[in-house]
């Protein structure tokens, strides 16, 4: 049956013809494969496989460099050593406590920044006078490196938790303010006008047009800045700290334990990735309309 049908339609590849036999006698268009054409979408399975593929390649190159003896173990631990050191960190050195400390600092500092920055950003985006008042100063502050404040913050807040939170705060606050102000200020004017013609007053415009319209953009800003907060926290912990992932990394540096350092870095990467995934999923749930 298959043989006769493919004989009757010689121009059709056999696989496609077998799928079409029952439906129609028209030739089936050949499957188009344009994997390397610009902007051509990639399938879900292929995407996952490709993404994992690079991790495999990365570990292979690393293993080859270290286990193959091309790089001295003093400078770079091999993957098995790294895993072993990581295991020791958890079982012997209470690393889970360090992770907990770092996570709390990131989220604490980040939430503190968000609580103040988002309302200010909304106010600046909404009222141009407020923007004119704050914008130059905030733009200036944005370029001040958060890590450069660490010595000052130690002087002001000591070596306690407040100092760590403040580093994150300084690093995130000004960025969030400006990005939220831009998002809110970029509201569609025609929607604002439509709301006015429906009887909305200024309060209604802010609460029921500007804020809901900007909400997905604000959430996206927060997701981005949370990622940056991770880099600030490690810097804060590298200096004058007695706990946290950053502190562990400084300790390991003194002992030339590259396995622990690399393990710490990877842990940061994994936690960052997980929190980013969670944030993305939450945004998609909260703002389903924006993804339509």
């Amino acid at each position, binding site marked *: 049956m298959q043989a006769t049908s493919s004989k009757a339609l010689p121009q059709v590849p056999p696989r496609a013809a077998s799928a079409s036999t029952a439906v129609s006698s028209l030739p089936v268009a050949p499957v188009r494969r344009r994997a390397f054409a610009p902007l051509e979408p990639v399938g879900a399975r292929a995407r996952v496989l490709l993404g994992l593929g690079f991790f495999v390649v990365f570990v292979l190159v690393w293993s080859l460099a270290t286990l193959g003896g091309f790089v001295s173990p003093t400078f770079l631990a091999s993957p098995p050593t790294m895993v072993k050191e990581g295991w020791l960190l958890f079982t012997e050195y209470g690393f889970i406590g360090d992770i907990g400390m770092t996570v709390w600092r990131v989220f604490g500092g980040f939430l503190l920044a968000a609580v103040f920055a988002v309302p200010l950003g909304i106010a600046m985006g909404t009222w141009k006078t407020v923007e004119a008042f704050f914008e130059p100063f905030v733009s200036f502050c944005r370029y001040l490196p958060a890590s450069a404040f660490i010595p000052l913050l130690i002087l002001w807040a000591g070596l306690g938790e407040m100092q760590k939170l403040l580093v994150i705060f300084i690093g995130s606050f000004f960025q969030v303010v400006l990005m939220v102000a831009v998002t809110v200020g970029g509201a569609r004017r025609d929607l604002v006008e439509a*709301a006015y013609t429906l009887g909305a007053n200024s309060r209604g415009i802010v609460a029921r047009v500007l804020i809901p319209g900007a909400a997905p953009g604000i959430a996206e800003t927060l997701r981005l800045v949370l990622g940056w907060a991770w880099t600030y926290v490690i810097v804060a912990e590298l200096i004058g700290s007695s706990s946290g992932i950053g502190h562990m990394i400084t300790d390991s540096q003194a002992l030339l334990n590259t396995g622990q350092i690399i393990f710490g870095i990877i842990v940061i990467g994994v936690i960052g990735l997980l929190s980013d995934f969670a944030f993305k999923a939450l945004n998609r749930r909260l703002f389903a309309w*924006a993804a339509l």
Partner: protein
Amino acid sequence: MGRIVMSQNQLSIQGVSRVFTGTKGQRTQALQPIDFEVKENDFVTILGPSGCGKSTLLRIVAGLDFPTTGQVMLDGERIEGPGADRGVVFQSYTLFPWLTVAQNIRFGLRERGMREADQKERSEFFIAKVGLRGFENHFPKQLSGGMQQRTAIARALANDPKMLLLDEPFGALDNQTRVLMQELLLGIWESARKTVLFVTHDIDEAIFMANRVAVFSARPGRIKTEIAVDFPHPRSYTIKTSPEFMDIKARLTEEIRAESMAAVEH
């Protein structure tokens, strides 16, 4: 202005002109002084070539733009800004993308603080009226352009405005959808009797819907002629092929053509 506002004229445009000032201080006159009256429950279309200032006039009536001279009176009161008494449907799709169809229609009612149950009743009535039953919980982006504009009309009507102002509301729709939307809007007007000011550059649309067509000149805009359209209501699409319709269309085509030529030569 010392003008007597006649009681049957609901909307009175008195000596309204508009001059836009550019960033470098150059002045562009968009509207020459215009006097125009609209009676209660009338359906008036404003027909003109693109860029003639007809949308500017509508925006001034809506309160979204302000005249350089003159004033607009609605029921004897001067218009100072936008308000719920003048429902507007824009050419661009202006449904709130984060609200569903039903929530969009209830927007104005909610702003007014209407009871939840009354909001629901009203929105259901108007959803049925524009034929969107079953789409209450869809988001605007899940709808076609025609459905979005039907929602926008329902949203404006749900507020029970004195006037409906429409700025080329069907301009972005394909021809078949546009014709159906015209019939829908006309049907609503025939049963609900609102005062309607409808801006368009489509001659067929202007004649089919209106009791009166006001023809705009090229920029700076002014009302050049007015033509009464006396077809009885309810109107059927079949009038579009009648000799009387063709007559009016021929006249308006000449008027508009002259203005379009003037606009191109400028």
